[in-house]
Structure formats: C-alpha cells, structure tokens
C-alpha cells in the first residue's frame, strides 16, 4: 500500500461517486421519471443474474441429454423447446442450438462481434468470453486458445467454431466421460463444468475434485440451479 494517509483530516468527509456509477444512476433516474423502468424490476433482474441463473442450469441440460436418449434427440432437433421443458427460457426470445462433441469433432463457442451467450443455461459470461483477445483468437487459432485453457485435443480432432448472434446462441454438449454408467443424472450434472459447455474445457472425470466444479464437494446438487 502506498496510499498517503498523512494529509490533514480537516476537510468535510463527503461521498464521491465514480463517473460510471453516477452516470448509471442518472440513466436510472431519467428512465424512471419517464416511466420506462421500475427500479424494483431492475433489482429483480440483478438478483436473477447474480444468484439464480448460471451454468448449473446448463449442467442439468447436459446431464439429462447424457442419461436420456430421447431428450438428447429432442435437444439436437429443437434445443429451444427441449431446454424450455426444464424451465429455462430466454428473455430475449433467442433461439438455442445444441452442438454435440464427438470423438471426431470438438465444438467451441464464441461471439466475435460482442458477447452473445446462452444466458438462460450459463448465466452471464465470464470476463474472458467478452475479451477481444478471446473473441478474435477463437476463430483464428482455436487450438491455441484451447491449449491456453489447458485443453489439449488429439491432432485428429476437428475443432468447429460457432459464432453466436443475438438471435442464435449455442450450448456445447460435451461427450459423457467414461466409467460413468453407474451415475445418476444428478451425479452426472456435477461433472459438467461451465467451460465444457462453451467448449474451452472438458467435463470432470468421476471422483475428480476441481476448482471448476459447479457444485461444492458435499453438495448433492438437489434443488440448485
């Protein structure tokens, strides 16, 4: 810490808003006065995206596809409807497409123009997804990007990159890890990571403890998401 605390404390201790905080408050004031927004609704949206919507939703979709062939086929045909059947519906009326990893093809999702992302199943995107570094490089050098995430694929595996738009968002369905035949759908969901549904990572192996896990150890995953 190099903060200087030697200045005299004889001034009035007033508050300071940073320029962006003040500007957002101004927008909220103007929009409220015009009747275009309701501050309570704004708080509800923040609460939803900070605490209720997140990649555990997507993990449930993937785990169901892994354990229910009929659901997997529905997901492949009409992901918007299949995902909505689990209670996850888009706010912007966007369509969903599920892209399935196979031994030959690995799928990777990006939004080159801005930051379109399947909010309903993954929540708000991580900082790196919105970074120009990722948005530009995922298309040019997907294998290099995957390596930076520690995801090394066989040279023979083709990497297919999907560019999201405002109307169409992608969910990667990773391959079900081996030796998981005995696991329940809830147990399978615990193996699904956020990055495995973007394509920058792979699912966890059974028994693996990882900081990428969406459910903390000991949490049975019931009633979450």
């Amino acid at each position, binding site marked *: 810490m190099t903060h200087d605390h030697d200045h005299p404390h004889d001034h009035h*201790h*007033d*508050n*300071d*808003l940073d*320029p*962006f*905080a*003040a*500007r*957002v*408050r*101004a*927008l*909220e*004031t*103007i*929009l409220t006065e*015009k009747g*275009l*927004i309701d501050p309570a*609704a*704004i*708080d509800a*949206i*923040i609460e939803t*995206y*900070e605490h209720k919507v*997140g990649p555990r939703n997507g993990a449930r979709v993937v785990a169901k596809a892994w354990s229910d062939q009929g659901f997997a086929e529905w997901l492949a045909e009409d992901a918007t409807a299949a995902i909505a059947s689990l209670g996850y519906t888009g*706010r*912007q*009326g*966007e369509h969903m497409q599920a892209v399935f990893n196979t031994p030959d093809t690995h799928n990777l999702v990006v939004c080159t*123009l*801005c*930051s*379109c992302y399947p909010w309903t199943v993954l*929540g*708000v995107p*991580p*900082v*790196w997804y*919105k*970074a*120009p*570094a*990722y948005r530009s*490089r995922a298309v040019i*050098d997907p294998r290099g*990007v995957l390596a*930076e*995430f520690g995801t090394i694929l066989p040279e023979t595996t083709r990497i297919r990159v999907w560019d999201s*738009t*405002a*109307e169409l968002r992608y969910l990667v369905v990773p391959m079900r890890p081996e030796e998981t035949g005995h696991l329940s759908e809830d147990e399978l969901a615990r193996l699904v990571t*956020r*990055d495995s549904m973007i394509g920058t990572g792979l699912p966890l192996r059974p028994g693996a403890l990882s*900081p*990428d*896990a969406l459910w903390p150890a000991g949490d049975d995953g019931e009633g979450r998401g």
Partner: protein
Amino acid sequence: MSPPETDPASPFRLPPDAGPDAPVFAEPWQAQAFALAVALNERGLFTWSEWAAELSAKLARPGADPGGADYYRHWLDALEALLAKKGVAEPDIIDQVTNAWHRAAHATPHGQPIRLENDPGERS
C-alpha cells in the same frame, strides 16, 4: 498494483479466469447498467438485435482493452447511444442529471445513502 503490461509477443493472452463462483459483476454499477438494457429490451424500447449491433459498434472502437476489463463502459456507451437514437434521452440531459448525482454525493455525509434529493443545486 498496476495491471500487467501486455507482452507484444503474445498479444492474445486471455485474462485470468476467476472461476465459476466469482462475482458476476465487478462493481454494482455494472449490474445496474446490465439490468437497464435487459429491462428496456423487455419493455420493447429496442430489439436485442439492435442492442447487439450497438454494443458491437462500441466494442469495436480502437483502444478497447484486449482483456475486456472495460466491457461495461462500452455497454454503458451503447445504452446511451440507443437512448439518444430512440429519442428517450439526449447526452446533455444525461450530463445534467449525472452532475446532479455528483453534487448530491458531495452533499451527503459519509456513511449515509446517497439520494438525488440531497443535491443542493438546481436540476432541470
């Protein structure tokens, strides 16, 4: 602590990932700016395609942080640009109300919630 300098030899280095349990928004104003755009879209002021086009334009400006740290600043700029286009709020009105909020903050004793009513100046 200053942020690490970008190494010209590896200009594409990704920002570190804070993990799945990291806070969704780095600062409260980012959450508010996010929610304002979502709410206005739901109210029908603009379509999400219009929003994505405006945000893309802001993000594509030169000087954007390769690590995306300034993402919500662009988000806020996109929101203001759309509000002007839709005839909802011109930049000078936003400036005036922003200044009123700054004055209100300065007039508010430390530890008290900042309210616009605390603005001692004239706003109109």
